[in-house]
């Protein structure tokens, strides 16, 4: 009885209040509120706008103190020179190749493994799952040296292998965790029905679970994409040859302290072409991206 009386009370009191707060009323408090938001927006946006503006400035303009976001005369040749540079193309193509191959391997193997953790019953499952999650505690640099030695002994230095191949072994405990949590929530009756129809676990994974896991797979794909596209340390350690360089190594190589004056406009133009794909993807997939971070605490690996 008491709960019955309580429920309508809540709906009457809370709903109108909530709706009222959505209305834009410009009293002193909300002006201050928006001022704070805009101030922080400047802090977050200014560097990026500065990057884009600088990429169109001339070398004289870049080397003198100024606060102008826009170039005096847009120097489109900054981009023209970049696009005319064969090493730029090579780095871009290399980056796309490495990212696509690694993504296919990683997302494929992660979805396979997550399925076994979420839907199959087998001895030792909890132990293996706990061991896998335990590796999240390991600092990446604890394995940096021995992995380098391993790849060196395998003769994989100056190849893409150290970057692409580990992905095929379900690299990324946090992503396995995220996908497994999602798969646990899919109704069990669906696999049971498939099993009764004679599907083996492989078929159940491919025809039932994978299609239903699309939102979570989108999340981990976006997440892994950004991490792979941005990664500097592995390409820096293992590629070591200009023909193999990916974009992070290429952009970092544009910066050279021996050069005077430093061609900031070229560095920024290269940065813009490098940042733009992730920025566009972020704009369209912000929801997935934010969910991925909220679910895993921002762990990429």
């Amino acid at each position, binding site marked *: 009885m008491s709960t019955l009386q309580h429920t309508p009370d809540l709906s009457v009191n809370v709903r109108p209040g909530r709706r009222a*707060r959505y209305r834009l009323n410009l009293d002193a408090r909300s002006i201050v509120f928006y001022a704070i938001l805009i101030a922080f927006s400047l802090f977050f946006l200014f*560097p990026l706008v500065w990057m884009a503006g600088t990429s169109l400035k001339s070398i004289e303009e870049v080397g003198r103190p100024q606060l102008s976001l826009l170039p005096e005369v847009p120097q489109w040749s900054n981009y023209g020179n970049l696009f005319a540079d064969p090493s730029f193309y090579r780095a871009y193509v290399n980056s796309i190749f490495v990212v696509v191959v690694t993504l296919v391997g990683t997302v494929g193997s992660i979805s396979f*493994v997550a399925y076994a953790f979420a839907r199959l019953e087998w001895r030792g499952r909890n132990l293996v799952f706990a061991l896998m999650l335990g590796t999240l505690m390991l*600092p990446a*640099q604890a394995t940096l040296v021995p992995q*380098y030695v391993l790849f060196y002994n395998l003769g994989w230095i100056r190849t893409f292998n150290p970057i692409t191949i580990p992905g095929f072994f379900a690299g990324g405990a946090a992503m396995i965790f995220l996908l497994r949590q999602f798969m646990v929530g899919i109704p069990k009756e669906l696999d049971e029905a498939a099993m009764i129809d004679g599907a083996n676990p492989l078929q159940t994974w491919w025809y039932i679970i994978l299609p239903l896991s699309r939102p979570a797979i989108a999340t981990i794909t976006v997440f892994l994409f950004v991490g792979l596209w941005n990664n500097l340390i592995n390409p820096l350690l293992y590629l070591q040859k200009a023909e193999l360089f990916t974009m992070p190594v290429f952009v970092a190589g544009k910066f050279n302290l021996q050069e005077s004056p430093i061609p900031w406009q070229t560095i920024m133009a290269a940065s813009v072409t490098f940042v733009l794909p992730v920025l566009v993807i972020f704009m369209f997939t912000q929801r997935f991206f934010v969910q991925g971070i909220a679910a895993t605490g921002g762990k990429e690996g």
Partner: protein
Amino acid sequence: MTAIPANFPAPKRRRHSWRKTIEGYLFIGPVVLGLIIWTFGPMIASAYYSLTDYRIVQPPEFIGFGNYIELFTTDRLFIQSLSVTVRYGLMFMVLGQIVSLLLAVLLTQKVRGMAIFRTFFYMPIIVPYVASALLWRYLYNKDFGPINAVLQAIGLDPINWLGSPESSLFSMVIMSVWTGAVTTIIYVAGLQQIPEDLHDAAKIDGANAVQRFFAVTIPMLSPTIFFNVVTGFIGSFQFFVPAFLMTDGGPIKSTYFYNLNIYEKAFRWLEMGYASAMAWVLFIIIMAITVVLFRVSNRWVYYEGSNER
């Protein structure tokens, strides 16, 4: 009901049949192999290398605890890089958590146009470290960087942000706050889980916004704060690319992060054994910090949650 044949297997016993276990291991094969090949194997190898003098071109030569003894007795760069990392971690923890929490509170207000502000605030996360490190190197430039141009425009003295050992580390903290909206996102998720009736109840009791923040929001958010503090502090031990590209550890080693030290030992001087010992010391430090933070958190989370205020 009794029509079930007597030999029908009990479901309980069937659940863990060998067939299913083999299927399970076939499915997790990739991750088990991956953990052995890329993680546990290298960890064991690295423990061994840390006890050797190993310069990759020659086979490792066993020297017992020599590397560890050198680390703790004569290597002043080791102490310096550890101190830089810890000081950065503490500064970033305080400033980063305060700013992120403030931003998260702003972003969870129900007002018009919040979606666009969220996009703005979150955008720097996806900027590659390579790009943001070079960009901030330019922003911080002593002579023609825009930050000093702003300072001079409002009549202040320019600051040699990255060029002086007093300010270089703090300059990196500011840059990390700019790229660190991951913390904000986690706080936003945490704030959205706080039931609204708690705020409503406090409001009815006459609590103002500030009182509600400290009496309701902070205690309810304490697990999230704890998570962010732990991951943020551990994350500061992973800090590498900005130090590598912005200052190369300088000036006078004021930004010589632990990771940069490991990187140089291993890949500039090819002292693989010594670098492995450094990695193990780091691993033990991170474990110790995590354990201490968990111990302390029990009291802290309990204290905040006990409604004493």
